[in-house]
């Protein structure tokens, strides 16, 4: 078993987790409503830009350049941040990153940190690690707050509480907040969150954030958000600790002109998100006077070593692929057993875990019908179906000899020769005698997995090739 907290310990394999999720009709209604709302909005926001395809191509190429020269760009951002008064730390894995943040928080003499929503810190289980070290981590993003107060797990990259509807959120807030929300109107729920967090923001001494982008040339860090909780955390505390995956870089300030167009339209389907903050090291008299940047590997270099799989590191965490995915729409995010659900999670999580003997991780690349909707919307053109199939091959290799592999080999042997194939057709055709109605409604395992919901047509008396030989041969 892997020890990378990117997948949750004890999570069942995807088909099993999906079965439980599919049985939850409330969950399916919530997901359907949310994903369909955002799909339509994204299409409109993207259609507004005449150069959308050109932006995607530039985004892809810039990120590929970053990955191809990652060592150079990391050294560059380190130098730039240091020159502007920041401190740069390197973390090989989750444990090391958590230790660094815990130590910095302790040195600042605080027992509570405010947090900006961050996938990197969710991936490494930072909140739990801080808690174990006696420091409370307060999530300030509305959806993260809903998950934290609900003692729940996230189910979406952008909106971790997407599986909850307004009535459920109101219940969580009523249970956990001193001042109850006035109603289940989103406006009142947002107001409740504002009151709940306001004192914490105004008195916090240490904040922890992630980063959407880091500019290698200048050392500037970019956080894209909506609510203003990000600005609160990035502006008011004395100490700011930013945990950033090593792949989050862009080479130059100019490159951001591409991503600041791609990201908002792909994620929240807005022309621009309400707030984007950019800071570089420490600015005297403005914002935190201590800035720490933690550069996180945690499996990314393993993914980088895979020539097909490395494209997953182009991801800018917009979640467009989740929103259009027909599998995600039905199962929700928790079935993926990872902070990275949906199509991107199905290719990223197994690569970060980097152990195809881990049954749960190895089940994720199969959580797709390969319909390709994810690739179509990806703003950095990650060919997710290609990587899924590539990882399936790795999973097959790791499993070795199985009934499936024997069957696949046998089938390949039959298909290698047209006569063997035709003989198999003739034998199979005999099954029609078992189904005089023309359809078969029940097959033994593994065919039962098909016939549990679908009939099979009975094979015809004459295959096409027999007909051709009889008439044209």
């Amino acid at each position, binding site marked *: 078993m892997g020890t990378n907290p990117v997948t949750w310990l004890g999570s069942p394999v995807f088909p099993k987790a999906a079965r439980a999720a599919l049985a939850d009709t409330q969950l399916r209604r919530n997901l359907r*409503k*949310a994903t369909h*709302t955002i799909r339509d909005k994204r299409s409109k926001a993207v259609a507004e830009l005449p150069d959308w395809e*050109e*932006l995607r*191509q*530039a985004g892809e*190429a810039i990120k*590929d*350049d970053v990955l191809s020269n*990652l*060592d150079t760009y*990391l050294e560059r951002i380190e130098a730039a941040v240091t020159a502007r008064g920041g401190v740069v*730390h*390197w973390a*090989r894995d989750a444990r090391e990153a958590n230790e660094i943040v815990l130590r910095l928080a302790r040195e600042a003499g605080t027992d509570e940190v405010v947090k900006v929503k961050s996938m990197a810190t969710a991936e490494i289980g930072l909140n739990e690690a801080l808690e174990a070290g006696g420091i409370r981590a307060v999530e*300030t*993003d*509305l*959806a993260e707050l809903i998950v934290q107060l609900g003692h729940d797990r996230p189910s979406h990259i*952008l909106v971790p509480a*997407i599986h909850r*509807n*307004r009535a459920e959120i109101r219940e969580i807030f009523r249970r956990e907040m001193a001042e109850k929300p006035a109603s289940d109107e*989103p*406006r009142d729920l947002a*107001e409740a*969150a504002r009151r709940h967090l306001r004192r914490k923001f*105004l008195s916090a001494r240490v904040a922890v954030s992630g980063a959407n982008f880091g*500019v290698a040339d*200048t*050392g500037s860090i970019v956080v894209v958000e909506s*609510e*203003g*909780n990000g*600005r*609160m955390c990035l*502006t*008011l505390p004395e100490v700011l600790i930013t945990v950033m995956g*090593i792949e989050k870089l862009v080479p130059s*300030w*100019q490159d951001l002109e*591409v991503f*600041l167009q791609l990201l908002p339209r792909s994620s*929240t389907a*807005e*022309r*621009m998100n*309400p*707030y*984007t903050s*950019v*800071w*570089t090291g420490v*600015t005297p008299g*403005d*914002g935190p006077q201590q800035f720490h940047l933690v550069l996180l590997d945690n499996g990314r*270099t393993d993914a*980088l070593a895979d*020539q097909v799989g490395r494209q997953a590191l182009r991801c800018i965490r917009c979640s467009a692929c989740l929103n259009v995915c027909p599998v995600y729409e039905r199962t929700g995010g928790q079935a993926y057993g990872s902070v990275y659900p949906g199509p991107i999670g199905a290719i990223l999580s197994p690569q970060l875990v980097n152990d195809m003997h881990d049954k749960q991780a190895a089940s994720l690349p199969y959580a797709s019908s390969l319909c390709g909707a994810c690739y179509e919307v990806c703003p950095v053109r990650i060919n997710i179906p290609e990587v899924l199939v590539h990882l399936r091959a790795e999973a097959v290799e790791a499993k070795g000899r199985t009934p499936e592999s024997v069957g696949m080999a046998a089938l390949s042997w039959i298909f290698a020769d047209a006569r063997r194939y035709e003989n198999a057709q003739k034998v199979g055709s005999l099954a029609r005698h078992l189904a005089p109605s023309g359809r078969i409604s029940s097959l033994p395992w593994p065919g039962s997995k098909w016939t549990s919901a679908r009939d099979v047509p009975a094979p015809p008396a004459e295959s096409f090739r027999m007909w051709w030989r009889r008439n044209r041969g």
Partner: protein
Amino acid sequence: MADARSVVLGRIRAALADRPAAREIPRSYDTSRPLGDLVELAAERIADYRAEVHRAAVDDVPATISRLLAERGARRMVGPVDLPASWQVDGAEWLSDSPTLSIDQLDGADGVLTGCAVAIAETGTIVLDGGVAQGRRALTLVPDYHLCVVRSDQIVGIVPEALARLEPTRPLTFISGPSATSDIELDRVEGVHGPRTLHVIIAT
């Protein structure tokens, strides 16, 4: 044991044994775009995100500020140290950020008035860079009301034009409407932690 820095850099170099050849970044996307009357478009797009937009001739800006503050009943207003004197209109008490205002003082104010560095018409965005008439970031964050004056010559068409005008090492804040969230059922509602009301005066 090797330090984390050299281990991570070593892993990267090993992973890139096949180091893909550098290729030209295709930059055939627009770096500017004919969008017609930028003031018109900026006004429309800023308003799209539920910010209130007012247009005024440069000479009428103080009168517009007076009217908006009076309508809102805003009496205690925060201003950066270099806020133009003519904008500090009668009828409000002006709290200047010198000496530095405390967070509680900011929290107790009725609003803040600033200028901006750049505005982006296509996205309805205003950008603050801590330059003239903008002050430090906390000033425009803690008060619940932000009134921002945008000069028409500060408006550009699209995002690339704005970034070309900005200095990345200054603390920058891109603002598109009042604070908002899509976290409940992926439906956008305005008004969370940042200023819940944003008024913009476009000075022409």
